[in-house]
């Protein structure tokens, strides 16, 4: 590469490129494997997985019961397994109870169900504040819970990964699981949002 191009690299671009080059030349990593990892999380794994789980729980009471008792097995039956989803617990919102997920110590997040975490989830602002002033944090997402709603914040301090199952929106009677899944946002499965309301 001509030297003047180097000046356009920001320091992290240069740092990661150098590290990847060293590791590849030393035979410690394989470029195609790095590409395959990126492709997995950019194209295959994402919140559509969790949305399918939630929509099925809304439409299939036996599955919802299984999800509550043994979420790891229930989501594995839909093909959702793997890294940062080895042990899963689903927590269900109720009219008087709202769940919110955080990892105050790092960035633990249910990758197998929601994909890679958004930047805000990993930010010091979210990790520090949501355990001490969750209502103020939720308001910054545009979510104002009714007074009297109990709030439970789950700090992901071990290897259990949490999925919030929000309440099914009203006005969706008779909808298919596929149509319902379109209403399930990523934020609604973290607890910083609610599902979309049908138009």
């Amino acid at each position, binding site marked *: 590469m001509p030297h003047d191009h180097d000046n356009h690299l*920001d320091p*992290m*671009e240069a*740092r*990661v*490129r150098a*590290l*990847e080059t*060293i*590791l590849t*030349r*030393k*035979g*410690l*990593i*394989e470029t*195609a*494997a*790095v590409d*395959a*990892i*990126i492709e*997995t999380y*950019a194209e295959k794994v994402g919140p559509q997985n969790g949305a399918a789980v939630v929509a099925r729980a809304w439409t299939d009471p036996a599955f919802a019961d299984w999800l509550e008792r043994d979420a790891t097995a229930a989501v594995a039956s839909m093909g959702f*397994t*793997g*890294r940062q989803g*080895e*042990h899963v617990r689903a927590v269900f919102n109720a009219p008087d109870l709202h769940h919110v997920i955080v990892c*105050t*110590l*790092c960035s633990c997040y249910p990758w*197998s169900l929601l*994909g890679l975490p*958004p*930047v*805000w989830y*990993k930010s*010091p*602002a979210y*990790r*520090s*504040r*949501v*355990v*001490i002033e*969750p209502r103020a*944090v939720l308001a910054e*997402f545009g979510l104002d819970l009714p007074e*009297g709603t*109990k*709030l*439970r*914040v789950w*700090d*992901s*301090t*071990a*290897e*259990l990964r949490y999925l919030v199952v929000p309440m099914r929106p009203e006005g969706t009677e008779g909808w298919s699981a596929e149509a319902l899944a379109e209403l399930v946002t990523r934020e609604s499965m973290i607890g910083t949002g609610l599902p979309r309301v049908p138009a």
Partner: protein
Amino acid sequence: MNGPHDLGGKMGFGPVLPEADEPWFHAPWEARALGVVLACGALGRWTLDESRHARECLPPATYYAASYYEIWIRALEVLLTRHGLITPAELATGTALERPADARRLGAERVPAVLARGTPCDRPLSEPPRFATGQRVRAKNAHPRGHTRLPVYLAGKEGVIESDHGGFVLPDANAHGKGEVPERLYTVVFDAAEVWSADSEPGLTISADLWEGYLDRL
């Protein structure tokens, strides 16, 4: 250690800034960082607990100034050097000086299986549980210098055992190469009034997943 990562309840970090239609990666290097970190992890030279500890050992000023992928890369450089896979001279010059072929290198064909399997951390235990669900416990007022998953904001606080998850690898040992030392893991629920103050948000409870040795009976 209650390092820069131990953020629960700390103040001064400003508003949370959700980004509409956030892309998976904000620069090409972030994607490469993800792939390189996971591919190096698959070499099996360190555990996830050790890599978490390497991240939280970054100096606070570095930790807070860095994006999460930068934290990952800086910690990866520490791990690679500590385990003798690259030398400081190689890092400084950006040149590979030695080539120790590694038989465990992750090939692209193994990526789907490795990612789909993950690394389960549950382990069988023969000892019975020390605590029953519904029992009141106190998180130890402990401030170990090494890796722990007891957040400092819960140290010394009283809570209730909500569920028993059986045995799990103990990060406090595993992060330091002392073996898995599986120990029972519980979900413990704390009232905000106990954790923070009597005038904290009403109706708020906080739970954490805590190992048996983090807890004392009342």
